[in-house]
């Protein structure tokens, strides 16, 4: 969880995103450093998921710049596929590939993108499954897994590409309460191992415990930014205060 000010992994400058007439992100600027765990909090419609999805260009930006590892991904000419190989994403609804078993879910990208041989991919997949405690489910199909298991597989799948950055879009929001813990545990371990993580979540407890920095968003703006102590325990802005009061 050590953050090195000199090593900026993601740099967002004056990001603006509109869906037609609806302005969802207004002038967002921030930096994500190597090894940093950044949690984004905020009410529904604040733009936090949209912001996250702009970071790997699942959403195109209307204005502003985003640099990932020094590469300007808002430039139309950039090979986004190559950039995405280094950014892992975990979705709220898991998005496991339903037409193949767990092992092939994990092996597909490394093999197709010629990152390694099939044997190496399989080895790495089993290693990642071990890491999320699901080695025995290698040959199961997604439909046979519980929500918590699916999400852990999804995390393992993203890790198989050996990304430097992991994005989490409300990873536990679609889970039954009993399964939230097992997924957060995996994420906690990832953080401890030094992964750069940007997490959109409603789990304030997790944010307080694991985050290096918390960003509170509302109405498309970054309202407040700082350590968990600053933003969650001693918020300064009125909107932050009212949000924290409602969810704690």
């Amino acid at each position, binding site marked *: 969880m050590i953050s090195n000010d000199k090593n900026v992994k993601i740099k967002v400058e004056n990001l603006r995103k509109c869906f037609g007439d609806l302005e969802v992100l207004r002038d967002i600027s921030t930096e994500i450093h190597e090894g940093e765990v950044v949690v984004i909090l905020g009410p529904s419609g604040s733009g936090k998921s949209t912001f996250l999805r702009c970071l790997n260009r699942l959403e195109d930006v209307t204005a502003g710049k985003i640099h990932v590892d020094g590469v300007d991904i808002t430039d139309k000419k950039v090979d986004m*596929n190559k950039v995405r190989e280094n950014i892992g*994403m975990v979705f709220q609804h898991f998005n496991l*590939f339903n037409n193949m078993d767990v092992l092939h879910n994990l092996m597909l*990208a490394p093999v197709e993108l010629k990152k390694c041989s099939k044997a190496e991919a399989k080895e790495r997949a089993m290693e990642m499954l071990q890491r999320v405690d699901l080695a025995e489910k290698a040959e199961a199909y997604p439909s046979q897994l519980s929500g918590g298991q699916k999400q852990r597989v999804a995390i393992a799948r993203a890790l198989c590409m050996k990304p430097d950055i992991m994005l989490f879009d409300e990873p536990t929001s679609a889970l039954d309460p009993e399964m939230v813990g097992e997924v957060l545990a995996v994420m906690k371990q990832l953080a401890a191992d030094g992964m750069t993580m940007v997490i959109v979540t409603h789990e304030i407890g997790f944010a307080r415990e694991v985050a290096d920095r918390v960003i509170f968003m509302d109405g498309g703006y970054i309202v407040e930014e700082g350590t968990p102590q600053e933003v969650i325990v001693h918020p300064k802005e009125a909107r932050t205060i009212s949000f924290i009061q409602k969810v704690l």
Partner: protein
Amino acid sequence: MAKIISAYGKLLILAMGRTLLLAFLGLVFACILGMIFGLMSVVKNKVCNIIAQIFVFIIRGVPMIVLAFFVYFGLPYLLNNTLKIGNGFTLTALQAGTICLALNCGAYMAEIIRAGIQSVDIGQMEAGRSLGLPYWTTMRKIIMPQAIRTMIPSIINQFIITVKDTSILSVIGFPELVNAAKNVQAKTFMSFQTWAIVGIMYLVVITILSYIAKIVERRMNRGVKR
């Protein structure tokens, strides 16, 4: 009834054979056209989308019998007489019939394929892209396999409709079952028996095809919760 069967049975069965051959040829090309236009309607290219829409719009708006006359008579006339680049260009009834079926069935297939692809949750594509997989790789390995499962019942239904649609091509003189039946009726004057037998022949073939369809569907859905 028995008289017709013994005298003309072989003739009718041969005609059914030609019917099925025409249907098969039409379907092969229809699948190709359907795949092309189906994919054109889902890619993120406005020009492709519009072309595909126009194709479906035209075919769906014109009765197949009109299309048959247009292809068999109209097209050669256009090339030979109007544009004068034909040089005695003609199409056989088989060629024209195949083209007509391919276009007609192809348009409906395109719609089935479009719907099938769009029925796959968008999250599947997002997950594939987020891993760094290119668009077409994601389509091939993740989207299409899942889309096909949804499409199979509709595709098989379309096959069956196409077999029946071959009867429309009797108007351009293709020697399929309806034309053979007309001959038998002309020779024997036994209208009821002729058409009853032919009706039953179609029924039997379609039932067999439907049965095969059910088996294929069951096999495809093995292990999938529905």
